[in-house]
């Protein structure tokens, strides 16, 4: 076991790992070392103690949130989560500027693929820390140029990453294609911030953007998807940004047919539903109300909304981005 604590800066959160087994530290290092964006504010601390235990945890029921590999309950002690393999995370305590969690992982699961489920539990602690630091986590992409900032919204596999890459190679700067933080800044102006500057790109992307190289040669970053992780600076140096004020909400959808891009305006209600649909909302009235308020205030700050439907192989046609740019 390592004898000293390890720290990672993950946006507005500093994660401190108490000494733990190398297998745990390696897995968490893989998860957190990709968060390379720089934040200047004093970080909120999330302290994690991860330990091997002889038996699986008592399963949570999902009264707070149900995820594909993890159930989360609200308990008198705070949030309690368990994963499919019997690992658990327990919120321990909070203090001014930080909080701590204990993660118990069944010893007989450490050297199995179930070690990936550590990511879900650490991710829960991160989300808790980001919220405590005053930000709303948004599963979306963002690009900025010439005072404009587009929030690109779609479900996983919906085309956020490819559109982000297309815009970046067209001269836009990216704040990320997957993980963003959003808050209402001074003067009631919404502010979006980057957490990591990477793309999750499908190997097929090379057909449209040859500079990404043969992505098949790179390891998958998740068993859930054939996509590979590509860092923006490795392919398009200097095309990253840290903060921006959103001006547009773009609902991105795919059309499996090879049809031209279709663009239509979104109403305020459609913009709200698009944005709130990118936020994981637990059964917690306080957190849900805060997320709803952030989404509502963002929409009411004067953003424009566009519904963008992109056909198969649309990026081979220069008219696709030209049409989108003209509609902004």
């Amino acid at each position: 076991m390592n004898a000293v604590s390890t720290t990672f800066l993950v946006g507005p959160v500093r994660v401190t790992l108490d000494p733990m087994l190398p297998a745990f530290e390696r897995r968490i290092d893989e998860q957190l070392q990709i968060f390379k964006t720089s934040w200047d504010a004093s970080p909120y601390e999330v302290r994690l103690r991860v330990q091997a235990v002889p038996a699986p945890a008592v399963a949570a029921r999902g009264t707070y949130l149900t995820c594909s590999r993890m159930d989360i309950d609200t308990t008198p002690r705070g949030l309690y989560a368990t994963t499919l393999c019997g690992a658990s995370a327990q919120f321990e305590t909070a203090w001014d500027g930080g909080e701590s969690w204990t993660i118990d992982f069944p010893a007989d699961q450490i050297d199995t693929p179930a070690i990936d489920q550590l990511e879900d539990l650490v991710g829960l602690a991160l989300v808790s820390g980001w919220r405590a630091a005053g930000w709303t986590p948004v599963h979306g992409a963002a690009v900025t140029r010439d005072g404009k900032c587009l929030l690109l919204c779609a479900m996983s596999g919906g085309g956020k990453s490819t559109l982000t890459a297309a815009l970046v190679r067209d001269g836009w700067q990216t704040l990320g294609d997957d993980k963003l933080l959003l808050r209402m800044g001074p003067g009631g102006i919404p502010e979006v911030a980057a957490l990591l500057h990477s793309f999750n790109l499908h190997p097929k992307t090379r057909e449209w953007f040859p500079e990404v190289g043969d992505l098949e040669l790179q390891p998958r970053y998740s068993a859930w998807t054939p996509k590979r992780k590509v860092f923006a600076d490795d392919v398009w140096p200097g095309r990253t940004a840290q903060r921006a004020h959103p001006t547009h909400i773009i609902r991105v959808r795919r059309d499996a047919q090879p049809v031209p891009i279709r663009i239509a305006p979104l109403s305020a209600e459609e913009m709200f539903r698009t944005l709130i649909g990118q936020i994981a909302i637990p059964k917690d009235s306080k957190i849900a109300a805060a997320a709803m308020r952030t989404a509502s205030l963002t929409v009411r700050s004067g953003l424009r909304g566009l519904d963008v439907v992109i056909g198969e192989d649309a990026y081979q046609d220069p008219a696709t981005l030209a049409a989108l740019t003209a509609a902004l």
Partner: protein
Amino acid sequence: MNLTEPLTRDEMLSLRPDVVATVLDEGAILLDLDTKYFFALNSSGWAIVQLFESAASLDDARSFATASGAPEDESVELFLNRLHEYGLFEAAADDAVAAAPTLEIAAAWLTPTVERQSEPLQQVIVSAFDPSIPLAE
């Protein structure tokens, strides 16, 4: 509460605590955290619903609507019974304080409306960060 029975006129009701609201345009959006359905209210609908953030009866809402310029018709009853059918109310606590009758709305009175979103948010999502539908591994 029996959701198939219409509301009685003097039954004191409150919005369920796990129904959260936010203002949008002239109206508001409600989210039922149990079913994960969104509901869009117009301005008059939102004005009425605010009465039930504490406690109110159908009669209270009718009086408020009339004082706000509503015509003498069944629109308030229909509106509240629609919310009731959606399960957004619960019986008010015995010590609940009735809503202040002085609430005013800025816009002209409209027939109150509620529109439920066709699809709820996902009940099972990828992770605490990603609200997408999980894909098969």
